[in-house]
């Protein structure tokens, strides 16, 4: 179990993380969802004993990260957002050395694991290629593979599928799930909604260094009133005011972003003609209309007031 208790990290006058509290259960996949600069990487580096928290505490399986960093490091493996690999080494060598440092596996078992992972990630043919000669996607897969072969008690992935094509993304997600099935607790930091939604059992929304919400994706969606989202694009939304639509009792919230209007509502199909009529009467020209169910993206927007780009 991992516990952050009122954890904070200050760099100069900037609070990268502030009063962050969460408990991560054994064997769960937790998605840390937030935009770039939200503090996700800082949280992970504090958990990985690279940074010291400036306030609060973090315990990993009962070990305080400041008082028992060596014990914590033996439990954790972190795959970084930007691949942190020695360019002069090949993919095989990077993984083999990582296993030498993090496990007590013998040579044969190390080779078996590395081979298995490289083959699964379609990197076996390039196993002797120096990583500095690899594409961004290949390097990223090597970075993820470090933790997949290590199979640590706590596996942390920072944007695990950044730079990856769709088939590779699906494959990495599958391998992360397998890791969890084998007993690892998994933390995935991401700014991709679909990744958080499809991979995580629980999503923690982080914004400006603070924990905004933490529930299952379904529970989070349930917190958005209405259950449906009507997305309207206006020709010119500068004169639009949310109160023009909140007079309808089925409408729970209205958010405006430039010319795009998001209406959180019930009975969208029935209400749509009335909304269109109201806007037309006010002189707005509607360019497009889209009615959809609430997504994690809408949840994020509701909680933070901003979209994840």
């Amino acid at each position, binding site marked *: *179990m991992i516990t952050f208790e009122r954890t904070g*990290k200050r*760099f100069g006058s900037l609070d990268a993380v502030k009063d962050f509290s969460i408990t991560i259960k*054994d*064997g769960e996949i937790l998605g840390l969802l937030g935009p770039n600069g939200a503090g996700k990487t800082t949280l992970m*580096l504090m958990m*990985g*004993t*690279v*940074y*010291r928290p400036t306030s609060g505490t973090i315990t990993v*399986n*009962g*070990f305080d990260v400041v008082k*028992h960093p*060596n*014990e*914590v*490091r*033996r*439990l*954790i*493996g*972190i795959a*970084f957002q*930007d691949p*942190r*690999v*020695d360019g*002069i*080494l090949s993919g095989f*060598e990077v993984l083999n*050395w990582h296993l*030498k*440092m*993090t*496990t*007590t*596996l013998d040579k044969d078992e190390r080779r078996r694991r590395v081979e298995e992972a490289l083959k699964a990630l379609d990197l076996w043919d390039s196993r002797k290629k*120096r990583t500095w000669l690899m594409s961004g996607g290949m390097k990223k897969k090597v970075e993820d593979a470090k933790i997949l072969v*290590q*199979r*640590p*008690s706590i596996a942390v992935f920072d944007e695990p599928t950044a730079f990856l094509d769709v088939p590779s993304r699906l494959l990495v997600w599958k391998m992360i799930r397998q890791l969890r099935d*084998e*007993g*690892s*607790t998994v933390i995935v930091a991401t700014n991709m909604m679909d990744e958080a939604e499809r991979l995580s059992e629980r999503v923690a929304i982080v914004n400006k260094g603070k924990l905004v919400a933490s529930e299952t994706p379904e529970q989070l969606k349930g917190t958005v009133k209405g259950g449906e989202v009507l997305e309207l694009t206006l020709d010119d939304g500068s004169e639009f005011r949310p109160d023009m639509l909140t007079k309808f009792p089925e409408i729970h919230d209205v958010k405006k972003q430039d010319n795009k209007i998001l209406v959180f509502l019930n009975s969208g199909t029935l209400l749509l003609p009335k909304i269109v009529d109201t806007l037309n009467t006010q002189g707005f020209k509607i360019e497009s209309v889209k009615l959809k169910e609430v997504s994690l993206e809408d949840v994020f927007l509701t909680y933070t007031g901003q979209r994840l780009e």
Partner: protein
Amino acid sequence: MSSSPTLGNGLSKTAIAEKSPTHLIVQMALRDVSVLFRTPWIIITRALAFIIQLFVFAFLISGLIHIPGLNFFEYYAVGSVVATIASISFVIGYDIFEEAEEGVLDYLLTLPIPRREFIIGRALGGAMRAIIYTIPMFLIVAFVWGFTQPLSILTALLALFLLAFGVTGMSITVAVSVKSANRFDVVLALLELAVSRGSTALYPITFMPFYVSLFAPFSPVSFAADTARMSLVGFTLDLPALAGLVAFVVIFLGLGAAFYFRRLEGGIYG
């Protein structure tokens, strides 16, 4: 609290690393050494450059210089091996600085190796790398001048290793205490110039300008060069120089570790 980690989630497939400090230090050192072996052409070209320097430049200069009782060609040959090892040992500082900039250091710091072992491993790796790098040059000199006494060779190698270890510590100290890349380059280059050129490695102290001769005897490169020469040529042990080298190693490894710890405590970018 128990000193062994708890596996709260029933993980059974991976053995958790709780290895001996020696194993971790060696692995960390071998990482630096292995990088060298992946670029053998650097060793070969450096050895070739050394041969040219020795048999063209040094040969020519020694023909112009006549010092009674001193074979300058031989003097220069031993000294240039020592100066080279000092120069190579500085490289680890560049590596560490680059790793910090590129974030590889963050990765290394998440590995299950205590910080003290980490630093010793890096310094040892840097020193081993410098020794391996210089061995072809040392062998050339030993072969040409007929240095075959095993004890003399071992003493000379010990001096070279101590110098490499100390310079590595010095280089790490600079790498972790200077944050600007430009400033780091300048400081390290000046330091390298000062300890190598302001030493007795390439020219005898009696021929140095007064202002250089004041501090040259105290350069670690002088300690190593004097020890190596006394051992290889004079078959004697220069104990004061060897003691100076040991002190140099202790001071700069200690300083390197202290600065490193201080930097890590606040976070690499803190």
